[in-house]
């Protein structure tokens, strides 16, 4: 941790905490797992990075490489011995090996076995070195990526307003990928190839100093010219990386602005702009190729130039008799061997330059001004006492682009138990003020203190646990609603996960590996939930607490409905499924008692359900997995065989024909993208011509002339028909009876291997594949009963309440998957989910930044009331999107052009000509 403090000091901008170490002494919550939470600065160059984090490994790699040389040398020289001494007939025998005298054949065998051994050893060395290099590279890459990601989490908020994530993603993913490979080679290749080269040069000098000199004569020139040429290539490389990032950014922007692009027909401009960018990349790339290959050309040329000296100078020397012919041949051969290591070295040089630039370009992006101190972000104080006392802002200012003051010398002080409204027009600085108070942005000047502590010096552990903040467009993470709520309670692992022996070993290995790469070594599977901070003793109490909060925010009905649509696994929920089955019977009884059984048409294995589709009637169950998906039934061989068995295939195709005829007649004149297709048609606009073709084939040559796939196309139509809804004559009672027969055959003959693909409806059994609601209804809400859509859920709700099932269903609703970014929830739902999340950790101060803007008036009122109650003895600062809502607050701060214009109780401010009155009048 000492190192971390030093790092924090060197980061600059963020003041270094001194007082805090005393106030909140650090400690480790799980002593079993030592934590290393320091965050490091990035090394300025890739070689510094390599040396700092992998010097011993690099040395080991070098040693290994050199240790492999003797084996390589012997494996090259042994064949000569075998030929010269064992195979050639003039060799004298017996020959000695390891103190034993061997005859020719045993000698040959011994040498061959020796050769085999050397080959194996070479392979083993190669295997080991390569794996070692790979492992080293991967660990370093892991460390590097981790460092980048950790730094990204420390970026100032403004960074993300300026830079899209599309620029950051490739840096952490693709751009650094090749660095791993390079890091393994960073020392091994120059040492190995350089060593080889040096040996050869030495050999040549020993043969003849003049020729040796000739061989290396051009190296200084190469050493001077090539880096200069390379420098230009490097420049271009940098530009290319920047441009590619811009491309990523542009793609991201286009995806985000898809609606605007189409709504304004700016497609051509976008395409042109994109083409322009691609053109820039092309130009850069082309220039790189020209220069890069020129470097290669020059290099090859110089390499070829050297033999010119050999032939001319060497030949002259041989003719003059001052050099032996043998020596010239030996030097020439040696020179040929030089080409390979020289080429390798040159490639390595280019790769090194490439990696160096990549590294520098990446880390350059990861050092924005105003980065948060790593220590403040990760520090874990011993205990976190509640914030209390006074919250004071002292000449608080925030500049945008270093000039324009969006918050201008704001000074106020409030009690931490006050409920304070902040109002103002948009652009008045009220939203920025809220961000400053939650320390999500840092003030340019001035400071905020809470209970005497400077907000800037508090560790994130204090801010993020004692202060709640919700903005207008809160983010939900992909996963369940429950996970999203519990996010506010998961700060660090509190109770270690239980592992069996094998898993424990695996975990220990993962831990070790994480530490070797300088990653955080917490256990993802430990229990991270801080029940204490939610005021709960255990999971059960926490569930109750969540339910309470949901009711406060009038969100429980939404979650209840999520629950009804969700599925549960009966295996783990025996008691609940029993109660749900009970609810099923109770609902049936209620419908019976009220004389409204017609509102729900129950599934009865011996009756056709007119409110269900033909597919549902045929299967009489819920498909599990894709085999019996309703959309794919017409392609399912087993289904087809059943239809054949009961002689229904032809008739269903005929039904399909009639449906197709109707659809083509009705939808023929509509534009292909007309929404009626989506809403009402059985046939998509793209398929309409195909069906029209099928119909004309039938009209001219009869149904028998259809190809197999055309028949299947027709067959797919009737499966979607719902008798009560679509009211088509073709699905008359006789036809329904025949489908019923098919249902029985389908069940009777279902092959064993398909039994897991479907769960049949059964009045006495819980259906794991169906939703809770379907399990209680075991039937279809009737079409054509005006009452049904409202009355059935109403009765369902009543039954659920009588059986006290609602809390259980709300609890299951918490498992509802909110989708990426929470897109499966409406904004009003997301906002309430985020407020619930903030309330769950019982913050001492809750800051809401227009956090209920999507709620309608009535809901807004209810939520606001609930929040005032919930936060009764704690602080609430609420930036309101409507000034009139400020009525119920202890104090009101009125912002205008970045300045705090008015403050005080609402009654005092709401007089004629006050800004408050103006704001209310403007609504």
């Amino acid at each position: 941790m000492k190192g971390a403090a030093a790092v924090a000091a060197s980061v600059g901008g963020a003041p270094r905490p001194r007082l805090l170490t005393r106030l909140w002494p650090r400690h480790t919550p799980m002593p079993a797992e030592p934590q290393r939470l320091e965050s490091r600065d990035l090394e300025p160059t890739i070689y510094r990075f390599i040396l700092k984090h992998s010097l011993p490994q690099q040395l080991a790699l070098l040693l290994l490489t050199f240790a492999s040389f003797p084996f390589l040398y012997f494996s090259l020289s042994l064949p000569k011995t075998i030929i010269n001494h064992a195979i050639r007939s003039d060799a004298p025998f017996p020959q000695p090996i390891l103190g034993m005298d061997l005859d020719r054949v045993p000698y040959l065998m011994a040498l061959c076995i020796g050769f085999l051994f050397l080959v194996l050893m070479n392979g083993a060395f190669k295997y080991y070195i390569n794996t070692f290099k790979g492992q080293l590279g991967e660990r370093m890459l892991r460390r590097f990526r981790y460092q980048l990601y950790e730094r990204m989490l420390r970026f100032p908020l403004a960074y993300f307003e300026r830079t899209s994530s599309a620029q950051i993603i490739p840096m952490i993913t693709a751009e650094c990928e090749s660095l791993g490979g390079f890091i393994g080679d960073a020392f091994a290749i120059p040492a190995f190839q350089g060593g080889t080269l040096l040996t050869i040069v030495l050999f040549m000098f020993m043969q003849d100093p003049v020729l040796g000199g000739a061989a290396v004569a051009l190296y200084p020139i190469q050493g001077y010219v090539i880096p200069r040429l390379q420098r230009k290539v490097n420049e271009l490389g940098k530009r290319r990386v920047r441009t590619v990032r811009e491309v990523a950014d542009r793609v991201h922007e286009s995806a985000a602005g898809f609606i605007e692009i189409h709504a304004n027909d700016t497609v051509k401009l976008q395409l042109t702009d994109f083409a322009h960018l691609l053109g820039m990349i092309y130009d850069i790339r082309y220039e790189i190729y020209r220069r890069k290959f020129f470097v290669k050309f020059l290099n090859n040329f110089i390499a070829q130039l050297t033999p010119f000296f050999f032939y001319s100078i060497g030949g002259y020397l041989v003719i003059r008799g001052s050099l032996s012919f043998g020596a010239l041949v030996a030097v020439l051969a040696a020179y040929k061997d030089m080409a390979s290591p020289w080429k390798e070295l040159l490639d390595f040089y280019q790769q090194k330059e490439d990696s160096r630039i990549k590294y520098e370009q990446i880390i350059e992006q990861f050092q924005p001004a105003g980065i948060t101190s790593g220590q403040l972000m990760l520090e874990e104080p011993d205990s976190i006492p509640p914030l209390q006392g006074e919250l004071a802002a002292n000449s608080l200012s925030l500049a945008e682009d270093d000039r324009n003051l969006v918050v201008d010398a704001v000074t106020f002080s409030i009690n931490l138990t006050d409920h304070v409204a902040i109002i103002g027009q948009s652009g008045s600085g009220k939203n920025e003020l809220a961000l400053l108070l939650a320390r999500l942005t840092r003030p340019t000047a001035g400071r905020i203190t809470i209970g005497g502590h400077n907000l800037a010096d508090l560790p994130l552990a204090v801010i993020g646990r004692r202060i709640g903040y919700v903005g207008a467009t809160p983010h939900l993470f992909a996963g369940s609603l429950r996970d999203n709520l519990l996010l506010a309670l998961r700060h660090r692992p509190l109770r270690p996960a239980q592992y069996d022996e094998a898993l424990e070993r695996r975990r220990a290995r993962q831990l070790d590996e994480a530490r070797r790469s300088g990653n955080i070594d917490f256990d993802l599977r430990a229990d991270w939930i801080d029940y204490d901070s939610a005021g709960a003793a255990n999971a059960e109490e926490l569930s109750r607490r969540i339910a309470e909060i949901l009711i406060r925010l009038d969100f429980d009905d939404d979650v209840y409905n999520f629950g009804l649509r969700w599925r549960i696994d009966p295996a783990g929920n025996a008691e609940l499924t029993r109660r749900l089955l009970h609810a099923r019977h109770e609902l049936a009884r209620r419908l019976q008692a009220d004389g409204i059984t017609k509102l729900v048409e129950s599934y009865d294995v011996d009756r056709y359900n007119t409110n269900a589709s033909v597919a549902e009637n045929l299967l009489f169950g819920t498909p599990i997995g894709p085999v019996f998906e309703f959309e794919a039934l017409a392609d399912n061989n087993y289904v087809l065989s059943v239809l054949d068995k009961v002689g229904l295939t032809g008739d269903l195709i005929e039904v399909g024909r009639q449906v197709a005829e109707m659809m083509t007649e009705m939808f023929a004149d509509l534009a292909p993208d007309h929404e009626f297709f989506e809403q009402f048609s059985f046939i998509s606009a793209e398929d309409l011509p195909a069906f029209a073709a099928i119909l004309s084939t039938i009209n001219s040559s009869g149904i028998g002339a259809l190809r197999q796939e055309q028949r299947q196309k027709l067959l797919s139509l009737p499966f979607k028909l719902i008798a009560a809804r679509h009211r088509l004559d073709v699905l008359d009672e006789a036809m329904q009876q025949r489908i019923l027969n098919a249902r029985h055959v389908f069940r009777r003959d279902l092959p064993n291997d398909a039994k897991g693909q479907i769960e049949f409806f059964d009045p006495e059994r819980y259906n794991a594949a169906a939703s809770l609601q379907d399990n209680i209804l075991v039937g279809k809400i009737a079409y054509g009963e005006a009452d049904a859509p409202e009355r059935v859920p109403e009765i369902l709700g009543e039954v659920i309440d009588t059986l006290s099932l609602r809390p259980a269903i709300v609890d299951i609703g918490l498992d509802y998957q909110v989708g990426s970014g929470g897109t499966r929830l409406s904004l009003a739902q997301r906002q309430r989910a985020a407020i619930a999340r903030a309330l769950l950790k019982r913050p001492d101060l809750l800051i809401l930044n227009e956090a209920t803007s999507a709620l309608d008036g009535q809901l807004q009122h209810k939520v606001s009331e609930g929040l005032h109650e919930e936060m009764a003895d704690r602080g609430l600062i609420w930036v309101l999107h409507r000034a009139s809502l400020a009525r119920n607050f202890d104090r009101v701060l009125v912002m205008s052009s970045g300045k705090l214009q008015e403050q005080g109780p609402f009654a005092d401010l709401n007089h004629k000509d006050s800004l408050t009155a103006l704001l209310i009048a403007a609504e």
Partner: protein
Amino acid sequence: MSLQQEFELLRRVPFFCEIEPAKLKLLAFMSERVGYDAGKTLFRQRDRADAAYLIIEGEAEILVETPSGPVTIATLGAHEIVGEMAILCDVPRTATVRAKSRLVALRIGKDPFLRMVREFPNMAVSIMRELAHRLELTNNQLLTALTELRRLTEDDAEAKPPQASPVADKRPAVTPAA
């Protein structure tokens, strides 16, 4: 009752009778059939109008709120349409409609209907013609009423006010058959 029969019923409604068959079929297909038990309300006075109803079977009564409570001003039977004016313009319901007996009706949604009108100009022309016809009818009624009024006021002072025909949007000359 099938889609085909609903289509036949729609064809007999003057409001729709001029629309070409394929489009009328589409309209029937996009509409839903709804059943109401006796006493259930189809819609209430002052509600936002979102659909017209073609009565397939049963009877519906039309009620208007008055200071002394709701008053039934008419009863509709099978094959009659109610609320069709409201799906053409954005006015709230001018009366409450309630099922008098078990009632089955075809609910023609405002959105799909208007979109069809926009899609097929011929449909708009048919409807305009029907509306013009109704306007003429109403004009005639107004003229008769005015003449009657003048006669009464001229004749003598103690004459009671004439029985004005109720001007709920459901009533005036909805169906000649009514």
